């Protein structure tokens, strides 16, 4: 629809003419009386509800009157104001973790703190984000990135902290940033930051969780004490150290960077090795198949878990009945899990169990009872006999594996 506001002269004429038969239908807005006073026709406000009573909706949500249609040309998507730094007075460097190429909340909090540092006092600083390897995220501008240095090469897909540390040293020598921020995480930021600190001979502030004017508060003694210390050049920050950027857009303009020479590191990545899913502690497992009272065939349950490569979990009933060991129990009385995908088979969803899976991303319920709490919570609920559904699921997964194998086999034969 066009953004232009179009006048309807006839409607305006009718609105002016109080004796016109259509006048009542068109005028609902304020009318100025002959004395210049504002007159409101209260009979025309609101609508008659289903029970015959007049309802006035002031939220504007269901405003489908003429007023609404007249102003319908307003933009639907909110465009945030652009924060521009044309000539940065100084730089704040942030090295992003980018787990699987995307910003996570820790990265966003780090960028939020970097923007705080760039805009404090008189401001004028620019936040330079450094991304290694593949970058799939396109929301960097909304996360507070003024400049971006993207270093992408084949070898950055692997774990090569020594090379990254070398690259960072080159960038830092060139930009001379006021502060360097890294997420103090186990996804690489903590490791890289400490390597960089040792190489630059800078004493980092680790575990920073709050910035006051010229001091930072850090968690020390493995989380038992708070240390207030002066702001240092290198900061390894914790999650929720600052609010992420949400009200401005940033330039996110690409800075060119002369590639630093590749060096032969002392570490060589040999790739991840496959781990037994049941050896992963339940609390940190990414994919859990959990069984409850509704399971009759436990042999099949174990088989399904091994085919899917899922860690096994259980509800309290299953544990009490002796079908699963106690350390597999999920819920408030067992383990609080954080899985990416949680499949609950035959679990109706006691409140203790629902608390335990509160942090799971995607929940799948397989249950015969359509009205149980687990089905209400689940993203996908399969209603039916769990034995049949699991059997079919195993078949499908095995088919898929076979197809993949034949494709891979064909490719290697050629």
């Amino acid at each position, binding site marked *: 629809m066009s953004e232009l506001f179009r006048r309807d002269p006839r409607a305006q004429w009718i609105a002016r003419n109080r004796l016109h038969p259509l006048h009542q239908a068109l005028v609902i807005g304020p009318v100025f009386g002959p004395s210049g006073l504002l007159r409101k026709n209260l009979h025309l406000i609101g609508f008659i509800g289903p029970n015959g009573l007049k309802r006035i909706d*002031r*939220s*504007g949500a269901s405003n489908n009157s003429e007023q609404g249609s007249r102003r319908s040309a307003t933009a639907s998507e909110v465009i945030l104001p652009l924060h521009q730094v044309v000539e940065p007075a100084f730089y704040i460097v942030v090295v992003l973790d980018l787990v699987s190429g995307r910003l996570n909340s820790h990265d966003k909090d780090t960028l939020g703190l970097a923007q705080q540092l760039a805009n404090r006092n008189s401001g004028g600083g620019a936040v330079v984000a450094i991304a290694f390897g593949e970058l799939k995220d396109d929301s960097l501008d909304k996360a507070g990135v003024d400049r971006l240095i993207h270093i992408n090469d084949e070898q950055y897909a692997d*774990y090569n902290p020594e090379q990254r540390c070398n690259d960072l040293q080159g960038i830092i020598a060139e930009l001379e940033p006021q502060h360097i921020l890294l997420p103090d995480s*186990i*996804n690489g930021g*903590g*490791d890289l930051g*400490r390597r960089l*600190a*040792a190489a630059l001979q800078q*004493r*980092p502030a*680790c575990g920073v969780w709050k910035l006051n004017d010229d001091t930072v508060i*850090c*968690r*020390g*003694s*493995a*989380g038992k004490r*708070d*240390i*207030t*210390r002066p702001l240092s050049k290198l900061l390894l920050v914790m999650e*929720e150290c600052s609010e992420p950027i*949400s*009200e401005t857009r940033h330039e996110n303009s690409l800075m060119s960077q002369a590639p630093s020479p590749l060096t032969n590191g*002392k*570490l060589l*990545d*040999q790739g*991840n*090795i496959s*781990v037994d899913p049941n050896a*992963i*502690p339940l609390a*940190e*497992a*990414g994919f859990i198949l959990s069984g409850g009272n509704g399971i009759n065939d436990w042999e099949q349950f174990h088989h399904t878990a091994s085919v*899917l*490569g*899922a860690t096994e979990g259980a509800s309290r009933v299953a544990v009490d009945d002796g079908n699963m060991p106690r350390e597999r129990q999920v819920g408030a009385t067992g383990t609080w899990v954080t899985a*990416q995908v949680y499949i609950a088979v035959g679990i109706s969803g006691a409140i203790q169990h629902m608390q335990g899976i509160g942090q799971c991303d*995607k929940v*799948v319920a*397989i249950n015969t009872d359509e009205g149980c709490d687990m*089905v*209400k919570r689940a*993203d*996908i*609920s*399969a*209603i039916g006999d769990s034995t*049949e*559904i699991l059997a*079919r*699921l195993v*078949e*499908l*997964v095995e088919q898929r594996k076979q197809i993949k194998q034949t494709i891979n086999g064909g490719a290697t034969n050629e």
Partner: protein
Amino acid sequence: MSNNNLSVISLVSLGEHPTSRRPRRAEQDARAIELGIKLVGDNLQTLHAGELSDDASQQTALRSYLGMGLAEIKLLEMPADADAVLVIADYLKQQKTDIILTGVRAENGESSGMLPYLLAEQLGMAMVTSIADILSIDEVNKQAEVLQALPRGQRRKLKVDLPFIASVDMAAALPRQSAFGPAMRGQFETTLGGTFTDEESSDWQIVDAKKRPKRLKIIKAKTAADRFKAATAKASGGGGKVVYGVEESAQAILDLLIEEGLI
């Protein structure tokens, strides 16, 4: 494993129980010793920089490492608040070591986790962080294969050039129990380590950690009606999909697993 001519040193610190604040063996350091014993058995050397206090409870913390079956702990004497990195680096420069094992971070003091990195930088060694195991050591090619612990229970295999420093993660094998008899019989071999005072940290304010404030859900609504709605509206069910029938259900679950990249 037969690594008789391999020289492995593990660095130990004093631990502190998170709740009772009692001194104890540091959990990660104990795992490092366990790993060291697995590698070289009795040839494992253990090093501690600090002071041997007359306080019996402090001594028990250090002695509980001896109780794991070590004959002695080499003690580099220095004041408790001095900088341990330079003392240890000075000592290690005179030694020929192949592998140095530490914890990821101390349970006391700043616990920045910088010590292994600084040592690696000063000694020119490779540094591997948070390892779970050392798989094999190839003494001919001067290389070792180590297993690094990653989030979500994943493991990464790395090849490292000898000599190297490794910090041992909580994912490593559980340490053996400390026995009282060997702990009392074990010896401390004390040498003077020197004092490098850490001047920077003297003006830090250190208090007991307070619980961090929970992040508030900030609602950035422009109108009062939106704010009201955000405050009162129930979290909607998120539109969970309900599927009936065996074939459809299995297919829907498979699609989800593929979408999440688990299969």
